[in-house]
């Protein structure tokens, strides 16, 4: 069996209990192993009923060219949504995450997967990711420190919706 995988979730390195189902051409043909699964979008679209019947927490992953709108009606059926970064320089996932959180009100685990590296974690956290499957060849404990690269930020984002200028003024008037 494969060794236990670790991810960062809510600021700590933890063992991961989920199984990621890789992309497949035909979503209907993919067999569903037991356990908690993160399935690709086309598997969900093709096997929706079977997945809902499993009485298991359900996860799905979106690729960077897929739209959160595809999940809209079912968003709260998912305990976990993962967003894939085919390359860390493909920034579409940042907007997908922000949309899932603010546009669709997703409250579950939002996980960055794929080419997930230390030096992007701070921004990823800001747009709403709370879990990070750091690329396997990198030191995950080292990556964890990047969540604290900055103590302040100008603009509002998912992690701290009020921009600095709104906090600045309350801080000034409070003193």
């Amino acid at each position, binding site marked *: 069996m494969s060794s236990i995988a670790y991810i960062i979730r809510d600021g700590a390195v933890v063992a991961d209990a989920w199984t990621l189902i890789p992309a497949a051409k035909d979503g209907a043909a993919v067999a569903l192993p037991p356990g908690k699964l993160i399935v690709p979008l086309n598997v969900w679209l093709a096997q929706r009923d079977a997945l809902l019947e499993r009485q298991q927490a359900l996860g799905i992953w979106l690729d960077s060219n897929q739209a959160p709108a595809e999940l809209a009606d079912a968003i709260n059926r998912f305990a976990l949504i993962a967003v894939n970064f085919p390359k*860390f*320089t*493909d*920034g*579409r996932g*940042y*907007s*997908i995450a*922000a*949309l899932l959180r*603010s*546009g669709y009100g997703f409250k579950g685990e939002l996980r960055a997967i794929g080419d997930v*590296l230390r*030096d*992007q974690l*701070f*921004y*990823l956290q*800001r*747009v709403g990711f709370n879990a990070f499957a750091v690329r396997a060849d990198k030191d995950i404990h080292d990556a964890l420190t990047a969540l604290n*690269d*900055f*103590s*302040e*930020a*100008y*603009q*509002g*984002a998912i992690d701290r*919706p*009020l*921009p*600095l*200028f*709104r906090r*600045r*003024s309350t801080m000034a008037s409070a003193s």
Partner: protein
Amino acid sequence: MYKYDQYDQTIVDERVAQFRDQTRRFLAGELSEDEFRPLRLQNGLYVQKHAPMLRVAIPYGLLSTRQLRMLAAIARKYDRGYAHFTTRQNIQYNWPRLEEVPDILADLASVEMHAIQTSGNCIRNTTSDQFAGIAHDELIDPRPYAELIRQWSTFHPEFAYLPRKFKIAVNGAMEDRAGTLFHDIGVHAVRGEDGNTGEVGFRILVGGGLGRTPILGHVIREYLPREHLFTYLDAILRVYNRFGRRDNMYKARIKILVKELGLARFSAEVDAQWANLKDGPSTLTQTEIDRVAAFFIDPIYETIADVNADFEKHQLENKAFARWVTRNVFGHKKPGYAAVTLSLKKTGVAPGDATDAQLDAVADLADQYSFGEIRVSHEQNLILADVKKADLFAVWQQARQIGFATPNIGLLTDIIACPGGDFCSLANAKSIPVAEAIQRRFDDLDYLFDIGDIAINISGCMNACGHHHVGHIGILGVDKHGAEFYQVTIGGSQGLEAALGKVIGPSFAQDEMADVVEKLIKTYIALRFEDEDFLDTAKRIGLEPFKASVYGKKSGHSSSELANV
């Protein structure tokens, strides 16, 4: 000008620490070249022909003398005593060592400066009108809004890995000296829906740009109330980030997306995103606008007569001074004051280059005569914005000593040129020697004054850092079978009536360029109406006479072949 508080300072200090660690990890082999590249680019660091190049932001072109002296000190300590001002209100160092860049950034942070997002596929340094706050045609001071946008864009987490670079310019005057039609987003500060009365708001343009596919920006919103500035920008950027092309870097700018979708559809997508964001937490507050605007109040001007007898007398007695006044002195909203442009376009010096000693001397001038502030123009010159007319003669004399008093602002020798093949690894051809050859050819001041206003812009490649498309005469370096050639355009212009130049025909070899420009100018002189400037003449007579002057019967000349660009 804007002053950092503890928050601003913390943010740049933490950035320096972050980049220091990233550089250390790169040098230790923990970060690959590919992993490090976007990180260094977003800290202004390119890898160039000879050495790394560091591009430092001068937000909307404003510098204090303390900052300018630090820029001089950096040139001395980490470079070879030179710095280069770009066309986008940045300054570049061509010889820093990678290991020392974190130290340079720390030195910059100590004077409230940085190199954040001066490169890379992110929101770049926000630019504005170099005469902001003093221009006689100003409706609204754009600087507070440029600063607000600077803060909003700095480390914007959603937009750090865009399909391509993204540039925003802000203008607040009647004339457009910020090139807003040629930016990914152009922001025009206006008063009310009619542009003149009522609350401050913005006309928003989108999808303009130079480069490989030059396009003028489209108005996407005629009037955006100011509280919605950030949420609306967020909406535009989100649409671009999700749908901009990432498969082909030449088609990745927002202008291509706007073109492919069409303005109506693009705009509908933006509105759909905006519906989510509008009136949310990022809505701009009056308190914040007031806080930032308070940094851009006028200096304490003296109440003086507009006419100064000594100044008038010097002009009558000294022809060289009078010439400099005609070209290098700009009107000021305050009686008795003027703005001075120091020319960084002396023949024989690369356009926009300055030495550490010159920068220090400019700082001294600004301290003595202009409230300790300097501005940087898109034309790669420096400006002392608030000089008393009574002091102009002294300023001129001192500027002469440092070689910054060439009376050529707006004249043919005030050439805008990118660093080109001498420094830039993307170049097809050199820019600097072409600029110099043209400057040398036109060394007669009387002739230059007779020719009048004309902008020559030179870019070493399609990236158009020298803005060749908007030059009255534009020169573009092209590669022809491995040799350096130059394509010439005519009729480009900046400002509200911005236009793109048209290619006159096959490209030329480097040693032909001074001849070519001379022939074009002779054609203009021969065919112009009395006071008609180059641009109007070119509009009226079209390309043909110019073509005839340079190509004539010379068809089949070895160097003549339409470059495939």
